[in-house]
């Protein structure tokens, strides 16, 4: 029952998050902006379009979008979004959570290289370098949370209650800050990548999907919305307490995720994209912040 509710929450409201971010940026810029449900209209439009495939590509090209949608859905099943326990919970599921996203990254980058295009290769080169630096930050945060909660399952790690905030509030704040930077990096948001630009010199994720069209491109759009939702839900779970009532918890998660969307919109409006040489420095800084959180909880 809670599993169905959680799945519906993720599947139906993920594109709304994209709309919230765009609307926030528009308001800050003094414009009216797109409708909140624009992402849904885009998905509908793309599903009706025809697909054109490049003659250089093989089946790997279509495996990219397929895996990019399946992975965030499966990863969301590992998170406790509607209640104190995730639908799929076991000891050590936190490692599976991170490695599922590595699986989607492998197939997305392989699909990009399949086209034999210089732009996609450029995106792949940048993506694999920055992802290598973002992983340790995620794991340091998980180490600190494991120490605070004494458990190896995301359902216990993330079900924060008042005692955790009393015990280790500094560490939790550091973890949230570090994971927010990882969220921006993994989901190609400013300051790592500008989702609205189509200048090849500045793209990372946008450039990897240049040759997709039609339903496959719709799946990519939907997959990126799901991934953003899952990462935001991860951060929301660290910050929010759980009541135990599935509906209240699901609503609270949705609310927190939309608030994170507003924050992402504000960050995107107030910063420019970083020079690419600065990106590794920021990611290593995020790892160090999370590492410091581990040091704090070890005392």
């Amino acid at each position, binding site marked *: 029952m809670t599993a169905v509710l959680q799945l519906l929450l993720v599947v139906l409201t993920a594109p709304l998050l994209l709309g919230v971010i765009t609307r926030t940026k528009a308001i800050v810029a003094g414009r009216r902006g797109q409708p909140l449900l624009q992402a849904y209209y885009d998905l509908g439009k793309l599903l009706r379009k025809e697909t054109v495939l490049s003659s250089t590509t093989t089946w790997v090209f279509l495996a990219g*979008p397929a895996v990019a949608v399946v992975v965030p859905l499966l990863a969301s099943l590992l998170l406790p979004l509607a209640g104190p326990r995730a639908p799929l919970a076991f000891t050590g599921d936190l490692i599976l959570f991170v490695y599922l996203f590595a699986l989607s990254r492998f197939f997305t980058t392989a699909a990009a290289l399949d086209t034999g295009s210089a732009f996609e290769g450029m995106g792949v080169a940048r993506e694999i370098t920055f992802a*290598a630096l973002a992983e340790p930050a995620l794991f340091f945060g998980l180490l600190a949370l494991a120490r605070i909660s004494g458990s190896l399952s995301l359902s216990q790690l993330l079900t924060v209650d008042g005692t955790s905030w009393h015990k280790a509030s500094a560490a939790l704040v550091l973890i949230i800050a570090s994971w927010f930077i990882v969220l921006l990096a993994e989901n190609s948001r400013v300051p790592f990548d500008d989702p609205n630009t189509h200048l090849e010199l500045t793209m990372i994720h946008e450039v990897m999907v240049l*040759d997709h069209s039609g339903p496959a491109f719709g799946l990519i759009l939907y997959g990126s919305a799901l991934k953003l939702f899952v990462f935001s839900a991860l951060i929301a779970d660290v910050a929010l307490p759980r009541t135990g009532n599935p509906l209240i918890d699901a609503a609270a998660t949705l609310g927190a995720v939309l608030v994170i969307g507003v924050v992402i919109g504000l960050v995107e409006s107030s910063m420019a994209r970083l020079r690419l040489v600065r990106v590794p420095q920021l990611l290593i800084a995020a790892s160090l912040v999370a590492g410091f959180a581990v040091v704090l909880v070890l005392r």
Partner: protein
Amino acid sequence: MSAILVIVGVALCMASGLPSLVTRRASVVTTVLIVAGGVTGLIGAVLGLTWGTAGLSLPWHIPGGALAIRVDALSAFFLAPVFLLAGAGGLYADRYWPAARMRAGYVRAFFGLMAGALALVMCAANTILFLAAWEVVAVSSFFLIATEHEQAESRSAAWIYITASHVATLALFAIVVLLHGVTHTWAFVPLAAGTGAIPVGQALLCLAFIAFGIKAGLMPFHIWLPGAHAAAPSHVSAVMSGVGIKMGVYGLVRLLSLFDAVPSAFGTTLLLAGIASSILGVAFAIAQHDLKRLLAYHSIENIGIIVTGLGIGVVAQTHGQPLLAVLGYAGALLHVWNHGLFKALLFLSAGAAIHSAHTREIDRMGGLARRMPWTAAAFLIGAVAITGLPPLNGFVSEWLLYVAGFTSITGSPHGGPALILVLVVPALALTGALALACFVKAFGTVFLGAPRSEAASDASEVPATMRAATVPLILGCAAIGLLPALFGPLLSRAVHAAAPRLPMPATFTALLQPIQDSALVIAGIAIAAVLTLLAVTRRAATALTWDCGYAEPTSRMQYTASSTARGVVGLFGWAMRPVIHAPRPFTLFPSAAAFESHVPDTVLDRALLPALRGARWVLGFARYFQHGRMQLYLLYLGVTLVALLAWSAR
């Protein structure tokens, strides 16, 4: 029963090459013999794992030696991949190195000899037999690396290999003698309590680190590995990388199992050496442009992961945390199997690609997936497995090590000495992410995109026997990845044999069951999604790559492998120190320019070889005594004689 099957397997493997030496038409006989040997030995190893210990002993005329083998759970665990890879490699070699090619009999003979001797090393109960089999493996590997000795690269790789191998053998001689001094037998018997603390025990451990570290390819002893595995024929590289280097791991585990208490400094050394090997190994791998050298550096990375697991086991055992120790040993041992499987798979499919494209350079291949779909699929499965992605087998062993790392921080009360194990988690994370980068680069540049050379555009799929040789490896990767709980009991028996003083772990099946369920779910849903999308777009139109509107894309416009790797090479420039040749034209009008970069092995080319050259210069002063004048030589004799007489008459 298992011991008899293993000995029959060894004999069949060793004898398999002899018919090919006699006549060219016997290559079918050779293939049948080695596959039969592999199957027999594999059955024997599986029986040894499931039924129990079995032994066999025959008299031997060497003083102290006995042809004694003992197939206990640990030996059987290491024997299984040896025989599987020997059979697969032998089947592959049937068409990869056909009888018409030069030195076919030589390759088959030494391959069989090496495989049989490897199996003997893993099950030898007598230390003299262990040493003899070790040397046979080393020498036959030397001859196999030097197969194409017309090329300078093969010759130099073979010389470096045999030098490093003999340093290891010298240390192994010392270990055997010291063991005899402590136990007074020429067999692997448990050492007396407290041996780890006395100088003899510590000397044994240091020598073991050197001998088995060199053989396993642990940094900084890895200098022989990239050249050797790149120069050898592909099926030989598969066996050498898959199980040859596990000889070092086996020796280390066997020796550690004889001690009752290992000093924690040794465990920490293992842990740090393992972490350094894994991170630096994969960093160097990304910088390579020779496909087989890239795979060889990945072997160094995975040996680092295995030794990290062993380090976790030893450190946790020393600090009285049996659960952690069991997890560490289990992860390390399962990774021995996993690495054997996916590395052999990668070498065999890479060998097929190299065979078809007639080059080892990644940047001369490309687009091979359209011409060789089966090989590309096999390489893809190997790449997903080696990166440690669910739902394949690499994820299961790395997961066990991650759980050990996380448990060390949740379990220990107040920041105790076992906290060094926390380093394992970020190290494994960085290694995994870099391995993903490297294999995306390798798979993408070799198999995807457009062909970058004439040979690549004319490549054709390899014969059926070469493809069939990869099937058991693919099935093994899928089985361990999708059904890990099935292998739980076998793993726990092997862990118990490796660390007899730990309580017998009974919880692997329960621990691995959720991984099994989630792997099946992931695999099922992902495959269904891909197939659905392929079916939906089956009748899609095709066109040239849009590429932002370029009208005439050529294959030269694609990103090269070095460009893809440039970001990571830049991050690790302090360790790799790439050599770049970029002569810039300083003329008024455009003229030719070039760019070339390569990454030499830091330890070999920047540390060891300069040090040896310096030593040779210093020792060159001894040449002043080698002038060739007989009178002065007689004077040396006279002076030495007088000095000895004076000294003995004191």
